[in-house]
């Protein structure tokens, strides 16, 4: 028996977006931006966000206009089953590769920083199994869980910022444009698919109490997440300065490692691992669930929970192919972003064109 139908509201969505995207402030994404933009690494995500905003708003507008259940239905509705499915597969593959590469990064990070003697595959397996268990509980439980864990995460973020602020030198933010305006803008453009999760989340358009709650949650969550990312990247710049910042892989952990808290707690970075790890479990749980949902919706698989296991293990096996972390981050992830970004930037406009064409034909 269920007393409340579709009980999830904006707050659960905000928590989920925070876990899914805001947490990119603490993974290896900043080093990806810093590679070229140098100490303008905090401007690049703003550029990316501005770049994805028009296609994203277009997509939200179309979803509202056609009142379809979700992204996959919108694709099918506007582009026809065949073309819609093909575009959907592109989106899925892009998201899948991005998830696999991200997951490998996180696991390598855990391995390298906290369990240097353990084999990667064991940590990977534990990580995947935990995500699978949680993902199996369904979207409502994941949303509630994200909201329930949020206080821990927020506390961690605030304390990290507090700790890091002690080591910042604000002059290090100059030169503001880092490697140069053109480089920053190009970087922001080509890496704009770091925010591809925004597009994916529209698969849950009708899963919330009503679509208004979804829109509120989506906009608030994305603005908060981008703010968090920008703030974090700014702190990294101010802590490390331009020559170091593009040579450090794990900026989040490094930044907490160099700051002692009083005379007693001299090594506090593991404290901040708690919130970081919890949020990463949730991040990949949500990511996994959403891409399985997309796949299920594309091919009319009703009980797509059965896909969680095969898709996650496939992602694990594929992501183990790059020989090491550096290759994975700097070649696989970066190249894949360069390829994925145009797909995600263009498909909403393709949908808009289809919608306009349909309307014209009707008249």
């Amino acid at each position: 028996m269920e007393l409340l139908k579709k009980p999830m509201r904006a707050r659960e969505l905000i928590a989920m977006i925070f876990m899914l995207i805001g947490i990119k402030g603490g993974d290896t994404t900043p080093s990806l931006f810093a590679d070229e933009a140098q100490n303008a690494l905090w401007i690049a995500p703003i550029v990316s966000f501005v770049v994805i905003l028009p296609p994203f708003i277009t997509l939200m507008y179309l979803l509202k206009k056609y009142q379809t259940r979700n992204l996959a239905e919108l694709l099918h509705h506007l582009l026809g089953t065949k073309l819609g499915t093909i575009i959907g597969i592109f989106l899925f593959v892009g998201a899948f590769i991005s998830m696999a590469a991200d997951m490998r990064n996180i696991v390598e990070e855990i391995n390298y920083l906290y369990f240097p003697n353990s084999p990667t595959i064991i940590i990977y397996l534990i990580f995947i199994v935990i995500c699978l268990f949680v993902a199996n509980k369904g979207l409502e439980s994941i949303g509630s869980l994200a909201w329930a864990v949020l206080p821990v995460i927020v506390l961690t973020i605030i304390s990290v910022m507090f700790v890091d602020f002690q080591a910042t030198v604000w002059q290090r933010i100059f030169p503001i444009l880092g490697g140069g305006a053109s480089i920053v803008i190009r970087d922001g453009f080509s890496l704009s698919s770091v925010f591809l999760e925004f597009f994916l989340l529209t698969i849950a358009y009708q899963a919330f109490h009503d679509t208004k709650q979804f829109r509120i949650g989506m906009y608030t969550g994305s603005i908060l997440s981008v703010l968090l990312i920008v703030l974090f990247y700014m702190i990294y710049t101010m802590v490390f300065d331009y020559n170091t910042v593009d040579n450090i892989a794990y900026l989040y952990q490094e930044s907490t490692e160099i700051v002692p808290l009083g005379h007693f707690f001299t090594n506090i970075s593991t404290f901040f691992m708690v919130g970081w790890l919890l949020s990463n479990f949730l991040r990949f749980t949500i990511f996994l669930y959403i891409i399985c949902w997309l796949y299920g919706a594309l091919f009319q698989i009703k009980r797509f929970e059965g896909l969680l296991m095969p898709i996650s293990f496939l992602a694990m096996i594929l992501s183990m192919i790059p020989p090491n972390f550096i290759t994975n981050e700097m070649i696989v992830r970066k190249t894949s972003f360069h390829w994925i970004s145009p797909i995600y930037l263009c498909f909403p406009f393709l949908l808009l064109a289809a919608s306009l064409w349909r309307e014209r034909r009707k008249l």
Partner: protein
Amino acid sequence: MFPWQKQKTAAVQKRKERKISRNLKSNVAYIEEQFSYGINFDFVSQEIVSPASRYHLFFYSTTIDTQQLSDHIISPLLEAKKDIPISRILTVPSLASIESMNGAEKGLTAGSVIIFKEGSPEAFEANIQDFKHRSIEKADNERTVKGPKDSLTESLTTNISMIRKKMPSKDLIAESIEVGVRPADPVTLVYVRDLVNNDVLENIKKRIQSITVDNIRNVEVLEQFLEERPRSLFPTMLYTERPDNAANYVSEGFIAIMMDNSSSCLIAPITIWGFFHSPEDIYLRWAFGNFSRLIRAVAYLITLFVSATYVAITNYHVQLVPIDLLLAVASSRERVPLPITYEVLLMELAFELIREAGVRIPSPLGPTIGIVGALILGQAAVEANIVSPIVVILVALSGLSSFTAANYSINHTLRISRFIFILAASLMGALSLLGAIIIWLAYAVSLNSFGVPYFSPATPHTKSSDDTYFRKLLKNIKWRPVFLKPKDVDKK
């Protein structure tokens, strides 16, 4: 249906349909046979001959009030000069006419007196039952310093009377439905008519009626039959012995389930916050109540995580510990041969043993527990280098904290979960510990109790009194818990 079952049900059906005959002798013979008169020492079959007519009384001498029997039944019957109906002779307050033998049998087993009259096809049931039960005592398991002290007792009528005294309203309903067959036991649902959600009420009724078991004697057993997930670590009904607590819940739109022979009642549906709150939180002033909640929240966290965190940190994340503390820990367990995980598990197990023994031990032997626990398991184990002192401190801390649990049901959840976390922490340090925590939490969040999500009103959010971690000022509480979908939401 199998043939032998058919025969059995047919026989039961036939017996149920038997009418009371006009012939007193045949009625008496039937009842005496059914109730094994002569073998049952307390079953009384008494004939009364008055100037006007002949009567026959049946009753269990152990379940009725003998004073009332002689004053209000036997003497009026003996003094009756004319042949007038029984209902006009007897002076008992509760008298009912019955026409079938089945009704007579039910009345007898419920502790009434059954009166047959010569030549009359109806009998009378005089309800003067006096079942013996404990008097109302202080609440033992859910103590409060401030607030009412009485607790429920093993008599349903007494319990209901306590609730009615707290909520004098015509809308307070105590509805009785039957469960089981050998014999059928009444289950009483207490709710407020114009608040309760009908879906929830019907759901509970349906579940009670669909229980197929020979008997259920008390709510403790009923609870396990009603729960959606009987194997789950988390209770989905609140078990309370305080009538004031029950009345508070009922007046919010919850349903209390009561049975005779239980000195407690069940509250359904319930959220996880209900297990975390004590009735005293409301009786205490705002700041004091919230302070006590804060302490309790810290205690829950300590109980669940302190041992597991120690295992994880000392085994896998030594770099986290400040160097002075690390040296202190290392030197304290310099001569301890056991690995840390075993050491912690050993002490946790020892503590559980003390606790279990403390519950079962006869009270004259009680002080022994203290000596055994404190001296042998604590001091001697440390001196013998079996465990390090720091582990004794941690286990004592987590054990002590687990006693702050406001409800006994959640106490078990905390204790068992603690072992899960210790084992998880020993597997892969913080990674597996946090993984176990998040799976545990995901499970808890996914639960629901009679359709109400387990973590509401926090998530999914609904309007409510916002009584989760902390409570508001009482005058600022505007809404009843909307996650129950009560008929009336506004509290003012």
